């Protein structure tokens, strides 16, 4: 499957529209990532979704950089958030597991 990459904030749902409609999900693959990065199937419906939202189109490399920068910052925050005497298991319970790398499809 070929994909397109774009950036648009997910505004959720209003009384008259949805950021992702039920019919969208029946017509093309769409997947959300950190940094409001959206990966959409490269077909006519995915293209219409990008146009409908005026999403900012990115190359795969540009989109991956956005995601990676966010993950790296979260890793640093996780590494630096320590409590004296806390075990690694206790830290995971408190903060959740250390953020992991994400590779865009």
């Amino acid at each position, binding site marked *: 499957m070929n994909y397109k990459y774009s950036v648009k904030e997910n505004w959720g*749902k209003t009384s008259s529209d949805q950021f992702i409609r039920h019919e969208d999900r029946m017509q093309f693959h769409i997947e959300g990532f950190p940094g409001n990065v959206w990966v959409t199937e490269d077909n006519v419906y995915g293209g219409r979704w990008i146009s409908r939202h005026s999403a900012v189109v990115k190359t795969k490399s540009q989109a991956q950089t956005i995601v990676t920068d966010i993950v790296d910052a979260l890793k640093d925050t996780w590494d630096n958030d320590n409590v004296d005497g806390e075990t690694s298991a206790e830290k995971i319970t408190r903060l959740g597991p250390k953020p992991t790398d994400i590779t865009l499809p």
Partner: protein
Amino acid sequence: MATYKVTKGTPVAFRDGAYPTSYPSPHEGELFYNGSSGAFQFLGVGAGAWSSGGNINTARKGLSGFGTQTAAIAATGNAPSTVTSCEQYNGSTWTEVADVNTGKFYRGNCGLQTAGLLVGGAPAVTDTEEWNGASWTETANYPGTVTFPILLGVQTAAFCIAGTISDSYATETNIYNGSAFTESTAINTARGEGVGAGTTSAGVIAGGNTNSVSALTELWNGSSWTEVGDLNTARNLLAGSGSSSSAMIAFGGDAPARAITESWNGTSWTELGDLSTGRRELGGSSNGTNLAGLAFSGCIANGTVQTSTEEWDFAHPLKTIDVS
């Protein structure tokens, strides 16, 4: 001269307006002429899909989510600091309501927007809180500290199943009647962080953590637990929607953030359409249905908490046939 229509044509139904797309429809797979729009249309095979709901105000993970698709509650959780706030959903918008008394994450939860229940949580606690639609009240403590038990049923008849007790995954179960807990039959495989649906007399639980991420499913008939068909994808920290032991959906979960949705029919799990944002530690419409569900908040693979909500609907796609 004969036309193509005369020699090859097949009569189709005429309808003054489109067929309703709600599932199930007796008109599934039917081609018809819509007199109102002047177009041929086709009512496709019913299918489930997630679409956007209103964004929650405070993103959180490890939260307590219960209710239905159009009347849900998101309470407490971790963002990553523990939050005490509580929000209610009306089908399009989340609104802040009264805070819980004890801010925790990984609490067991069940019930409706007007009558909900929270049990236990992390860090380990015995607290139980009831929600009456306006405020939280602490009630009888669970018999021991418990983290991330699976809760089925409603506020006055809730089945509290397993979870982490004294740092170990447990098999024990207790039934809450609105004022006290009574010990019931143990499940077969100790676990926490799973999901379930049903009542104190007929229920199903699935997934979770059994010291490894699990796909195991168990069915309760009111007197005993039986191992039945596994989830297709083992996972913990997932959520579900359903009030019956024979009809629920399970979605999301670890590791590290699943988008997978599976539907339970009483016998087996079938994979259906993915969430648009894979996530774990999310909230769900615990007492909703397998045809109308809600997934909200939680965190994605890198740990970022989410404000987004997704609504699950099972419907028939209506296609307009372009004959030009």
